[in-house]
């Protein structure tokens, strides 16, 4: 794990985006966390008014976690190119 490899993409180049839908409606203010491939916390953001979230990331494997009152839901995702990745939570 070193930032010296020029072949490696820089964090911030790509994005993981998605939405949270609860009971059929896009949920504002839901808490979504980004974890790295080791399960370490990277960032957290509440969803927007439209239930959306976005994280700037590098290529690689990530986990997006929806924090709920009694537990959480994890979704794994892999970012390979500039299309980024989309993660949807439907609760």
């Amino acid at each position, binding site marked *: 794990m*070193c*930032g010296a490899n020029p072949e490696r993409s820089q964090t911030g180049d790509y994005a993981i985006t998605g939405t949270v839908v609860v009971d059929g409606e896009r949920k504002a203010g839901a808490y979504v966390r980004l974890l790295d491939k080791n399960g370490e*916390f990277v*960032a957290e*953001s509440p969803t927007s008014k439209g239930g959306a979230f976005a*994280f700037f990331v590098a290529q690689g494997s990530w986990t997006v976690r929806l924090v*709920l009152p009694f537990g959480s839901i994890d979704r794994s995702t892999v970012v390979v190119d500039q299309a980024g990745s989309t993660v949807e939570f439907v609760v």
Partner: protein
Amino acid sequence: MSRTDVLVNADWVFTHAADSNVVLIEVDEDVSAYDTGHIAGAVRVDWRQDLQDPVRRDLVTPEAFAALLSKNGIGPDTTVVLYGGNNNWFAAYAYWYFKLYGHDNVKLLDGGRKKWELDGRELVTEVPVRAATNYPVPTERVELRSKRDEVIAAIGKVQLIDVRSPDEYAGRLLAPAHLPQEQSQRPGHIPTASNVPWSKAANDDGTFKTDADLVEIYTAAGLTEGAPTIAYCRIGERSAHTWFVLHEVLGWDNVTNYDGSWTEYGSLVGVPVQIGDEAGSPAGGGA
């Protein structure tokens, strides 16, 4: 100082709901969050407008701080309970600020707004009206704050703790992943600083971990209780969170917050910078 002196929970808030000597203050990164709903009786402090000098980059003056508290009906003996979003980042920053300006009767709501919401507790939109006070102009407690020259002099000599995410520390990112990538001129970290992200201290619901867990986290990172310690992040709010943990929850002495943080240090000319995951030597380097 210990956990029970500085942290309260929802039950405490309910018990003191009618106590006119207790003032709840919401402080959020998203300053509009208050308008969508807040804990009953809470007033808002806007970290940009109320806690940043309107002209230069600095804290507001002691006079402006006294005016802010007076306007919100807070007196020197008022118990202030701070809470906010983002795992209490800005509430912790405000807590540090209150301590810096000598208001010792201040507490943090454990878990902040997130835990309150996750627990399904009520939020209201009614804005309380409190009679103004005449808060005396405070004196800054300089021993709680570090400035850039102290930080430069501390490289290799004082415990420096960078509480940003590993990618920000290593220089792969200039800001948290959920925020626009902007700010400092250079990425990286202050040479010799260890990296203990603020998030290590918090549970998923935003509450602080147990004292035993916290001690384990910071000692495992090589920090020694009692040794002079400077915490920094990007703009000083996440490091206020870690300052709160070390100085207030664990009661470690000699801990300061460098509120200039990376947005200042990473834009200074001629100072050493370290790139990569290693703490580095005082001269900096990497890449």
